[in-house]
């Protein structure tokens, strides 16, 4: 298939960016979206031009490194997949594809399609853990956990930290990301001990870093490649309220 591409090019964090048009031809429908970009980049390098910078690593939908706002949607037109797992069969021959970086104040562009998502790490550093050190912990089976709770915790823990939720949200809210971690730990006895402090610290950090408020549009859930549920946000709000009241 042949495609027209409109790609955001920005030489560095502080430079101005703009859309540049490219053309790719004879792309296999079985190629992945990133392989299509590889082909474009190989052509650019051969012409002596600067290839398009984009983040990626595992190409298996699990590391959360790939991003890309494709035709107005984080991770493109397919549901429940990351950009690296998006395949060209989801596009039509001759289509124009617009590719942008995540657009959110807390995620500044570094170059072209790459953004800085270290704000997510800072939120986890504020409290997204259980405060135990290595060694001296009880036998794993001495803490039985209801299977239903373990499964719900796993649903929340499946978040890959890609930032699509923030990119999808008109307020650039990080509520889905933060609530996934808060929920995972709140659902497990190991995490209960520090539940109050955790939710307060993580929410405070999120606000401090300039993420916006949640106005319940649920765009985050709709675009999440791992289908993390907004029920986590409700759970976090409850946790937050309880923490405040006690």
């Amino acid at each position: 298939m042949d495609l027209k591409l409109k790609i955001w090019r920005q030489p560095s964090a502080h430079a101005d960016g703009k859309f540049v048009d490219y053309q790719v031809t004879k792309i296999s429908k079985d190629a992945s979206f990133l392989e299509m970009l590889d082909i474009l980049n190989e052509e650019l390098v051969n012409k002596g031009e600067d290839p398009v910078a984009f983040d990626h690593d595992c190409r298996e939908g699990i590391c959360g490194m790939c991003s890309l706002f494709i035709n107005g949607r984080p991770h493109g037109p397919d549901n429940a997949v990351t950009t690296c797992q998006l395949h060209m069969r989801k596009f039509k021959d001759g289509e124009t594809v617009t590719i942008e970086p995540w657009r959110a104040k807390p995620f500044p562009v570094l170059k072209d399609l790459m953004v800085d998502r270290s704000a997510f790490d800072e939120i986890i550093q504020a409290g997204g853990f259980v405060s135990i050190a290595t060694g001296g912990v009880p036998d794993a089976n001495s803490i039985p956990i209801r299977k239903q709770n373990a499964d719900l915790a796993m649903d929340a823990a499946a978040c890959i930290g890609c930032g699509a939720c923030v990119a999808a949200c008109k307020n650039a809210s990080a509520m889905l990301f933060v609530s996934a971690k808060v929920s995972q730990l709140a659902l497990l006895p190991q995490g209960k001990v520090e539940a109050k402090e955790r939710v307060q610290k993580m929410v405070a950090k999120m606000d401090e870093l300039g993420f916006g408020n949640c106005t319940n549009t649920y765009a985050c859930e709709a675009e999440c490649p791992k289908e993390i549920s907004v029920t986590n946000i409700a759970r976090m709000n409850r946790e937050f309220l309880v923490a405040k009241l006690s």
Partner: protein
Amino acid sequence: MTKLDSKIPAGPLAEKWTNYKAHQNLVNPANKRKVDIIVIGTGLAGGAAAASLSEMGFNVNVFCIQDSPRRAHSIAAQGGINAAKNYPNDGDSIYRLFYDTIKGGDYRAREANVYRLAEVSNNIIDQCVAQGVPFAREYGGLLDNRSFGGALVSRTFYARGQTGQQLLLGAYSALSKQIGKGAVKMYTRREMLDVVKIDGRARGVIVRNLVTGKLERHAAHAVLLATGGYGNLFFLSTNAMTSNGSAAWRAYKRGAFFANPSFVQIHPTCIPVHGDYQSKLTLMSESLRNDGRIWVPKKKEDAVKIQKGQMKPTDIPEEERDYYLERRYPAFGNLVPRDVASRAAKERCDAGFGVGSTGLAVYLDFKSSIERLGKKVIEARYGNLFQMYEKIVDANPYETPMMIYPAIHYTMGGTWVDYELQSTIPGLFVGGEANFSDHGANRLGASALMQGLSDGYFVLPYTMQNYLADQITVPHFKTDSSEFDAAEKDVQERINKLLAVKGGHTVDSFHRRLGLIMWDNVGMARNQAGLEKAITEIKALRKEFWQDVKVPGTNDGLNVELEKALRVADFLELGELMAYDALNRKESSGGHFREEYQTPEGEAMRNDNEFMYAAAWEYKGDDQKPELHKEPLIYENIEVKQRNYKTA
């Protein structure tokens, strides 16, 4: 003859580690603050070690290539992690896990290290559960286990098909806790390009800031490399795109011996190659072999029809299917170790029975499991893997068998380390996949995660401390010494040289060609002529690379092509060493299959009299042959046998 001292503690096998810890040197808490440690890599090994060392009180500086420590390649592990808990009460024990690992590695690993690994495996599960890792559970609330290849017990703990992700996020949370406290300084988007030695000891690193292009100097009392494996040398592999061999290779060139480089693992269940634009191969977890049955058509005509698209797998009746693993290995069936399963697939495809349009694929079929257990159960076990398969291949594995083929997956070889995981450069420690230590010639499934976390949480924090005990009076190092100047200059020159070539071919084009040479000659089956040819071809390709590679842009800022060029330049050297090693080892063991050395039934034939050793290679200069040092492997607690997976 040899300069190698493996430093295995004296005493009975089961007491070695306890004795070591009882007698090792410790650093007083107030002094730990005076000691700096550099950790390169935030996968399971690096992340766990950095968190644990920092909790003990050391000053830790951590570096990784990705934009966050949470994204290391460990995140992609799917199937599970082994431990000798014996929760299912099926006869498991520390000894059995130790035995299975040595046997699975085809008697080419060091007994003492493997025993320690089995011993601490149980602590890992306890640690991870305490961190809140949501392992799969039974209805009674206790932990669930599954089986993996090479074992007759169920000892694999898992978190759906995302075990690596959950374990890594556990280590990442521990690391984040330390970063949040200001006890660890984290440097992301950095690539280590050299080790700095002062008076013979590792005292620092040169790293490149991947965003600004600036070279940075960092000093410490000890350096830990936890930089993962070099499977990407083959271009197509299941590894993440930035996985590389450069840190280990640079250490090699500074004096750290490289052991068993030719021991690479080819995983039997990956999605087959489908086009020449392909950038990587996707693994389908080995856990699928619990419920999936592997087959090809019995009749060649049927295979040919399938290849031409004239027949579907579902058209082939039961009696016309060859479940070749069940046929050849009745005791282990579909759960034979990876090297055996991979070779058996290659054997069928080479004989013309392969399926798919290329004939380079076999079926992994869930039909009988779905009939026996119901679709719901299979979905709960493997749903995300089936979904991933469908997204990539556009076929529904609930209705038609998956197609799979072997692919490069893991490197057992790596930097040579002693019992303390210290390399031949004093003060340079190596953990996780980057070292050679525990898996011999073949790694069992679910044992890499175990090793990474064992090294990181439970071994390195002790052994590094033992080394550091007499370093407390050594003041913090400055980075303006002549040693740092020289190392930075070397790196700068390498970069300048790459940018100056301005040739006609992209880095990837060279990488692809290297991958093909390796896959054809240093892959699943090797022979003398092929290996000699590979050495000649790699040399020629390397020369061509330095004359004709095209690296656009400059070093001032983000330059992905330059990053790739630096890694591929190292792969072009490491590949040659792998071929040397494979040529030297005139036997078949584990993943290393020399066609000249096989039994009449086509099974690997070891030569214990001559090759029961770890081959550690010493760098002697760019155009010199490396020198081989042999670490003899002594089995005092295990009877060495021909591996047998036909009968239990």
